[in-house]
């Protein structure tokens, strides 16, 4: 596995000067993933923050070949690129080794693009799909998604006089992907470069479909101070709100076990989207959220062999 010095020596493949917000976690993910993958990589990107901030014509932040076509189809688009590659290799027209990576936000991955992703995984393309999961539709202004956690304030499940933000728990997309029985599935975070780049390298060393769900703090949608992005990611892992694990050929392995599992409230209270949870009358909701995190963590521990 490459160390930080090696990674830093390589050519910058996701250049600065893009239009992401100060403290944007998505840009950190893109940079670190491509850094780990190297220059022989084709990127497909679903419509969303990452595509919008990195490719405003006539500029591009991408030093590797990049294609964006629509919102719900990064899985199918990268399938097509990889299919052409396979065809050319079989015809003897091409012999370079190439990585195929798709990026989608939680909107493009959990929701509108789930079918396209599922199809691509089932067909067995040699691709890595990276979800930069900021837990809402941030590109359009923080609307709820299937990845939004219970109790979060979003613009389509807002906190009002009666409602207390999103009423449902998020779906377990990583679990859904594991059910596809693909070679490699993992969860990672912004704020632990070694975890993310290591998982990317490991994924790319394997044949077939791979998926990494990267938890991405969004300073605008989550409403926290921009310099806290990496800390927000690490705290998600420390509270087990976003456990770090990988599933290699069906075998679960927790890649980070906090020495002391912190109460989720410590992390929630730093975010504007959960501000209302700290009113005394919302204590039961806060307790529910903690209980759900505890249950998920216990279940995960049991899955590890």
């Amino acid at each position, binding site marked *: 596995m490459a160390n930080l010095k090696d990674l830093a020596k390589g050519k910058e493949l996701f250049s600065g000067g893009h239009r992401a917000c100060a403290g944007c976690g998505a840009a950190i993910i893109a940079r670190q993933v491509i850094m780990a993958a190297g220059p022989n990589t084709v990127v*497909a990107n679903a419509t969303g923050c990452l595509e919008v901030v990195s490719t405003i014509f006539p500029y591009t932040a991408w030093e590797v070949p990049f294609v964006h*076509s629509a919102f719900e189809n990064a899985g199918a688009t990268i399938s097509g690129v990889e299919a*052409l590659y*396979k065809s050319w290799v079989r*015809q003897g027209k091409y012999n370079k080794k190439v990585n195929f990576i798709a990026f989608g936000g939680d909107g493009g991955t959990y929701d509108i693009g789930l079918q*396209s992703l599922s*199809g691509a995984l089932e067909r067995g393309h040699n691709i890595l799909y990276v979800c930069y999961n900021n837990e809402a539709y941030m590109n359009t202004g923080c609307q709820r998604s299937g990845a939004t956690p219970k109790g979060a304030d979003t613009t389509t499940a807002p906190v009002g006089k009666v409602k207390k933000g999103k009423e449902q728990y998020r779906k377990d997309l990583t679990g859904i992907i594991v059910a596809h029985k693909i070679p490699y599935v993992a969860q990672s975070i912004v704020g632990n470069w070694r975890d993310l780049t290591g998982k990317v390298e490991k994924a790319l060393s394997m044949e077939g479909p791979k998926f990494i769900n990267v938890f991405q703090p969004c300073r605008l949608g989550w409403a926290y101070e921009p310099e806290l992005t990496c800390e927000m990611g690490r705290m998600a892992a420390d509270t087990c709100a976003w456990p770090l694990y990988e599933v290699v050929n069906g075998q679960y392995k927790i890649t980070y076990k906090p020495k002391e599992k912190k109460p989720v409230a410590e992390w929630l209270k730093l975010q504007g989207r959960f501000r209302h949870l700290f009113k005394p009358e919302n204590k039961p909701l806060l307790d529910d959220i903690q209980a759900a995190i505890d249950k998920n963590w216990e279940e995960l521990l049991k899955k590890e062999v």
Partner: protein
Amino acid sequence: MAKLNTVARTGNEAMAEAMRQINPDVVAAYPITPATEIVQIFAGYVADGVVDTEFVAVESEHSAMSACIGAAAAGGRVMTGTSSQGLALMAEMLYIAAGLRLPIVLADVNRALSSPINIHCDHSDTMMVKDAGWVQIFSENAQEAYDNMVQAVRIAEMSKLPVVVTTDGFIISHGMEKIEILDDAEVKKFVGLYKPENYLLNFDRPITIGALDLQDYYFEHKRQQIEAMRKSKPVILDVAGDYKNLSGRSYGLFEKYKLDDADCAIVAMGSTAGTTKVVVDGLREKGLKAGLLKPRVFRPFPAEEIADALKDVKAIAVMDRSDSMNANDGPVSLEVKAALYDKGLNKTIINYVYGLGGREIRLDEIEGVYKNLFDSIKGKKFDKVNYLGVRE
């Protein structure tokens, strides 16, 4: 001229045969009646190893066109096939394929759009996406379907535009006909090797495809695309010229059938043009000057050329196998009328919407249309839009 092989093929078989001979790098497709056979037969070719194609059996038509876009952007020669709801589900991606200037070729078997759900022929699917930026080529029969597919590859790659070749659901797609096909080697030579200019798999020149294009560039890029569509007209004719040298069969932007001295003309696309030719022959035997204009290329619409071809006709009936739901006319009629207006030609034009959902169009109905045209010359008035063969 090359050697021709006479074979019996349905429209779907003819299109699949053309695809085998073209041997594209990637086919990504999803089955839908009545186009299923095209990709099913092609999957058989892949299974037998007679093509080099990577076949991507996607989970929807939206993904079919998305994967085609990925493969074409990566630098490949790419094809697919669909119909009706499948084309509608692709609609978003059809616009994107065209805007990205990717030379994808699509075989579309014309079928009615839901609802009510129906699996039979009309042109509402293809008309729904007429402004998506695809060159649209209609076929009258299985022979034309085959010939159009072979030509479409070169038209697409020379124009940097996607091309859709259509047949009529069941009427052509499932009707067995005697057709003449070229030897594999001749088709291979005709379509040649595809050399993309910029493509994803070229790491010597990494490019960004599908960038965000805001107020200061979008319009220029669309303008270039529109210009490419205009310039595809001579490309279509050039390719047709080369194809005539090879096959002996001639194609243009449209076909004139006994039109030059005609008093009355029908404008009809697809299989109905064939039916109309039989009626024209019968009327000609009776000494009536009936003619037909069959648009082959609906996009780019050959407005000036069609107006010129119709300039000496006294009355025209435009047959629309789809409806525009209370636009001025059906889509074909709107185009023809506007074309004549631009030439300052004020002629009697009667629009007939017919054959929706596969409703049969009979010889006597078409004969009735000609009768109305001849009556209109004598001063009889008709409604602007008429619905032919419907119970009212």
